[in-house]
């Protein structure tokens, strides 16, 4: 059983971020970069599958510059077996990521591609579904529970109103949501061990023409400042006054 886990390097998801004054990008001064938290859940899930079934082989992959090695090493420390960095200096939009990953999937022939439902920087929620379409594999997005069997995955997935269970013939694409697991704390031995795991650097196979382009970033318009009320009576009166009670 081979699991491929794409991971994206994103700006610290818990930091307060601001656009650059000229709107050309995010001001990353002093900010750390992390594995996209939803991708980290995917890595964790793959490792838990491996703990249940030692025949599972986990490859993590990232598309980007040399700096992405940091996130791949972290994924190796969580428990992935090997990493591939698809080096490029151009920025890939979601269709571009899907195209590049489809090429890799054709070569590696994983049984499962598991990745975060969205990245916390661009919040697109597109790449995995586009990848599944390109490969013509079934998909289960927003996974809350994953069971991998012989030639088949059973996935409980979040829906707008509750959850549903899908049975997918493998190979398949699965995207991970919050409730699937809580990624482990990585202890020092894991970090040291990860340094000796294989990390292969290749040049990205594709250089796709982007289908979308961000032309400006700005801070959202602030909501008009509200006021504090001193008591429940005052609150109830204000709500009645505004006609919402």
């Amino acid at each position, binding site marked *: 059983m081979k699991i491929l886990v794409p991971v994206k390097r994103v700006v610290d998801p818990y930091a307060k971020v601001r656009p650059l004054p000229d709107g050309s990008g995010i001001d990353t001064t002093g900010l750390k970069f992390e594995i996209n938290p939803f991708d980290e859940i995917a890595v964790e899930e793959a490792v838990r599958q491996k703990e249940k079934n030692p025949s599972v082989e986990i490859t993590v992959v990232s598309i980007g510059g040399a700096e992405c090695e940091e996130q791949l090493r972290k994924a190796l420390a969580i428990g992935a077996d090997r990493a591939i960095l698809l080096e490029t200096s151009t920025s890939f939009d979601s269709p571009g990521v899907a195209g590049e990953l489809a090429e890799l999937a054709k070569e590696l022939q994983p049984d499962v591609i598991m990745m975060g439902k969205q990245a916390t*920087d661009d919040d697109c929620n597109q790449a995995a579904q586009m990848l599944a379409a390109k490969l013509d594999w079934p998909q289960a997005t927003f996974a809350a529970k994953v069971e991998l069997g012989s030639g088949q995955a059973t996935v409980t997935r979040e829906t707008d109103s509750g959850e549903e269970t899908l049975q997918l013939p493998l190979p398949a694409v699965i995207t991970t949501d919050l409730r699937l697991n809580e990624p482990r704390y990585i202890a020092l031995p894991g970090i040291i061990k990860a340094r000796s795991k294989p990390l292969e650097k290749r040049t990205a196979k594709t250089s796709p023409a982007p289908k979308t382009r961000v032309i400006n970033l700005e801070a959202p318009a602030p909501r008009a400042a509200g006021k504090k009320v001193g008591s429940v009576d005052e609150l109830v009166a204000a709500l009645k006054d505004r006609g*919402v009670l």
Partner: protein
Amino acid sequence: MSKLLLIAFQGHEAEQLAGFAQKLGLAYDLLSLDGQASLDLGAETVYQGTSADVMPADGFAKAIKPLSADYSHIAAVSNMASKDLLARLAGHMDAAMVTDVIEVESPTVFKRPVVAGSIIATVEVLSSPVVLTVRPAGFPKVDRQGTSSTSSFSVEGTALAVRTGSTSRGGSRPDLSQAKVVVSGGRPLKDAATFEQVIGGFADALGGAVGATRAAVDSGIAPNELQVGQTGKIVAPDLYIAAGVSGSTQHMAGIKDSKVIVAINKDPDAPIFESADLGLVADLYVAIPEIRSKIGK
């Protein structure tokens, strides 16, 4: 030729999408998957399906691709269903995609929130067709006029994935993304039973829906489908009451179009007080029962 196809999984989404369609300014048709959409929303043709209970994404995307092929723009309300299905459709069509559109600048330039809603990006679409998911709160309601021609449409085909079960936990409460009143709670609600009793009970008393923060969902206090925020549901009720909610950027991104936001939090420095219309510094376990008794509910 530029033309828009709106896809409404449920009838009420058609009305939400029509405002976006008018803003975009292109002629449009509507695919109403449950066949319940109104015919006076300005669509030229309404394709009427028979069920919103569509097959898994791989089969669905293939089934609607032939119809979609005639359009330059394909749009649906932004939710988990549309993100699952339309991103797959975009992949099959080799289309561009813009998720969570909040403003239209031109038929190829859109605004959308990124990085948990802390930044608004202006995105230019460089290829055609384009698939869009839309947050409808920022678009005006349309004047109802005329009658669309109708055509029946059935989503046919088979999916590789097989749905073997589904549960809906909504119960009798209104849909979160539709509700006029939303009461939501955060981590201080301790456990699922307390959350249901305090937040659920208050919501029921007001005839509203229940929401939750990501922290509450993360810690198992509230089910996932109640999560409000950039990575969860986007709401725009007349009244949003946040109890024990600190007001993270990603949560605020999901509620900013609410008419009146009320914050009840015992921490006077909670960031939510910066954006709430009405803030009450109080213990929610004391304040909520008091509010309920004062309004007789």
